[in-house]
Structures are given as structure tokens and as C-alpha cells.
């Protein structure tokens, strides 16, 4: 069981996808399963049958010519040629490719209903945890809490926030792989307990994955710091319900806003540094 949460800028130039690592059967569950694959310029997240997902990633990994321009067709043909129709309901796919400046980066494929990927959207969640994600969005919206989505930093903050909501599901865990799409290049990062089996060769080196996961841990610490600042500020603002908001509370809100600004700047720097390091690692 799974959750994938993908968010994209409207122009499709940058996007993020958070994926958990829990897999379950009728009698047990385990963690550390790779459900995200990053090509050179695309990212694929899958929910459903572990055996189909592993086979898809294996085939993608073994086919170097697959890129953003043909990956959707490749996955559609994979389903048609290698998976029996009766099993098509056992796979859901989210695909991130550059939107070309005109449209968002995310496309969804539900093979139990459709034979092709759907149109581009700027947000989508799939998997058993998706209900929790959409309920959290609905609740936030009713409470007047907006999710800013105008930069990659915003997208990461929103997706992590919703991944936290999905983690309330018994079928979802908080050991994530994260895919980034940035100006026609993809990037993978994640928890140390989810080393990818299928990825660019450099990431398969355990020492490299240790570095990646250390960077991810620091990035998550920044994200959690911001989430906590915002949460406390929202609690302070809720004093308005009892008409008890005072000047010192307003000062607390300003302090929190300043703290968020400081931490956002640090987060932006870490993302830039990670992407630069990743590009150098891949020699691009």
C-alpha cells in the first residue's frame, strides 16, 4: 500500500513527488520498497502490485533510450505487452515530465480504466493514502489555510505536509523517496532505509546513497522546522476565535514569519546545492 503526492508549477518547469516505502500483503507489511524511478529527465511513481512495479522499473532501467519524450508511450506499451489485462487494475502511475512552459508536469495513468496517460495537472495523489491527502487539503481549504505553490520550495513544503497527513494511514509509512524535476532534469533523494535498486549507476553505490540520505535528512529537518513554525503561528492566530488575540501574540506571529523566511532561504540553498552536486555526480 502506498501514497504518492506530486505537485507541479503551472508551467511545468519544476515539480516534486513524495513516495512512501511501505508494502503490504494480506498478512504482513514491510518497509524500504522502491516505488519511485528517476530517469534522466522524468520521474515515475507507481502504486499497486510490487511485482509489476519492480518489473516496470527493471525494464525502464534496462532501456537507456527512454526519456521524457517517449516514457508515457513506453509505459503504456509495457502494460499492453507484458502485463495480463486482468492485472491492469493492480497498477497506478504518476509521471513527471517538463511541461514545456505551457502546462503542468504531472500525468496520471489508471490502466484499469484507460489505455493511455491522462492530461497534465499540477497536483495529484494516488495510493491507499491519497484519501488522507485529499481530506487534509479539503480541511485546510475550509480553515482558510492556503498552500502556496509558486516555487520548488513551496512544492516540497506542501508535498511533505500532505505526506505527513497520509502517514496517519496504517498502510503508509514515513520513509520517503523524493523525486524532483527541475528544468528538464530529474533528481532523486530519500531516506537511508530506502536505497534504490533501480537508479542511475552512481546512486547504487552505498557510500553515495549515504551522502544522499544525509542531505535528505537535513532538507527534511528544514522542512519540519518550517512546518512547526507555521503550526505554532496558526495556533496563535486561532486565539481570534475567542477574541483574545493581543499585541504580544501579533509579535509572535511576526517572529514566526521572520523565522520561516530565514529557514526557507536555507532550504532553497540546500535544494540548489543538492541539484548542483547531483548534476556533477552524473556529469551533466
Amino acid at each position, binding site marked *: 500500500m502506498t501514497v504518492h503526492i506530486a505537485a507541479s508549477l503551472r508551467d511545468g518547469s519544476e515539480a516534486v513527488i513524495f513516495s512512501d516505502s511501505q508494502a503490504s500483503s494480506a498478512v504482513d507489511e514491510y518497509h524500504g520498497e522502491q516505488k519511485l524511478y528517476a530517469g534522466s529527465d522524468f520521474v515515475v511513481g507507481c502504486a499497486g502490485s510490487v511485482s509489476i512495479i519492480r518489473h516496470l522499473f527493471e525494464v525502464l532501467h534496462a532501456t537507456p533510450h527512454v526519456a521524457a519524450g517517449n516514457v508515457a508511450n513506453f509505459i503504456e506499451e509495457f502494460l499492453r505487452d507484458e502485463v495480463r489485462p486482468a492485472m491492469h487494475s493492480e497498477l497506478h502511475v504518476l509521471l513527471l515530465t517538463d511541461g514545456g512552459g505551457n502546462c503542468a508536469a504531472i500525468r496520471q495513468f489508471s490502466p484499469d480504466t484507460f489505455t493511455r496517460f491522462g492530461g497534465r495537472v499540477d497536483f495529484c495523489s494516488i495510493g491507499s493514502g491519497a484519501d488522507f491527502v485529499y481530506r487534509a487539503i479539503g480541511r485546510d481549504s475550509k480553515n482558510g489555510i492556503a498552500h502556496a505553490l509558486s516555487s520548488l520550495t513551496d512544492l516540497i513544503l506542501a508535498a511533505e505536509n500532505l505526506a505527513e497527513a497520509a502517514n496517519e494511514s496504517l498502510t503508509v509509512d514515513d520513509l520517503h523517496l523524493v523525486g524532483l524535476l527541475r528544468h528538464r532534469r530529474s533528481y532523486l533523494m530519500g531516506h537511508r532505509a530506502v536505497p534504490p535498486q533501480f537508479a542511475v549507476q552512481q546512486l547504487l553505490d552505498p557510500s553515495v546513497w549515504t551522502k544522499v540520505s544525509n542531505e535528505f535528512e537535513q532538507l527534511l529537518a528544514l522542512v519540519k522546522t518550517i512546518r512547526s*513554525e507555521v503550526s505554532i503561528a496558526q495556533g496563535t492566530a486561532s486565539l481570534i476565535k475567542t477574541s483574545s488575540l493581543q499585541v504580544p501574540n501579533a509579535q509572535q506571529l511576526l*517572529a514566526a514569519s521572520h523565522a520561516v523566511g530565514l529557514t526557507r532561504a536555507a532550504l532553497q540553498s540546500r535544494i540548489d546545492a543538492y541539484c548542483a552536486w547531483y548534476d556533477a555526480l552524473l556529469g551533466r
Partner: protein
Amino acid sequence: MTIDAREVVGAGFPPTEGERLAVWLMEQGDLDWHDLTIDVRRCPPALLISAFFNAFLQKIFEVEPARLELARSIKWQPTFPFQEKNIKEWVDAFSPFTPTEC
């Protein structure tokens, strides 16, 4: 002297935990604040936010205002460099308010 903050605070509401740490420190009569380091590496990142440090300093100001400047000089030992930078910013910028202003 170095104190492991996790031995004193929990993972609850950050302002409450900040106050808890301040009260505990003020109760340690023989503790020299001139050479004090508080190790917060085992504290979750979500705890180490501005509200935690503001509540910590505010509580000291309310109970022992004379020790506020000494409290600002306490060294903090977090896990990540950004936390060190943030903490310095918050401690330097802290401005106490008197409860009568409420």
C-alpha cells in the same frame, strides 16, 4: 558544562518545552551559566523553532530578569548548521515583553 536537553524536555508543544527548560535551568542552583552548553542534537527539528527559544528566554526574563543577558550567552549545540544560525538569530533578536502589556 554541557547539558543534554532531551533529558529535560519532551517533544511536545515547543513554547511549553522552552519554558520547561528555562524553569529547570533556574532550579539548578549550582549551575554556572557563564560556561554552559545545551546539547539539542537529540531534540526533533520541529521542536527547535523560534517559539521554543522565545519562550525559554521569556520565562527567564519573567522569573529572573537579571539573568536574561547571561541566558543569551548560553551556547547551543544543534545537529545542523542552519539550526545554529537560526538559534543565534532568534536569541540575538529576542525582545521580552512584560505580562502587564497583555
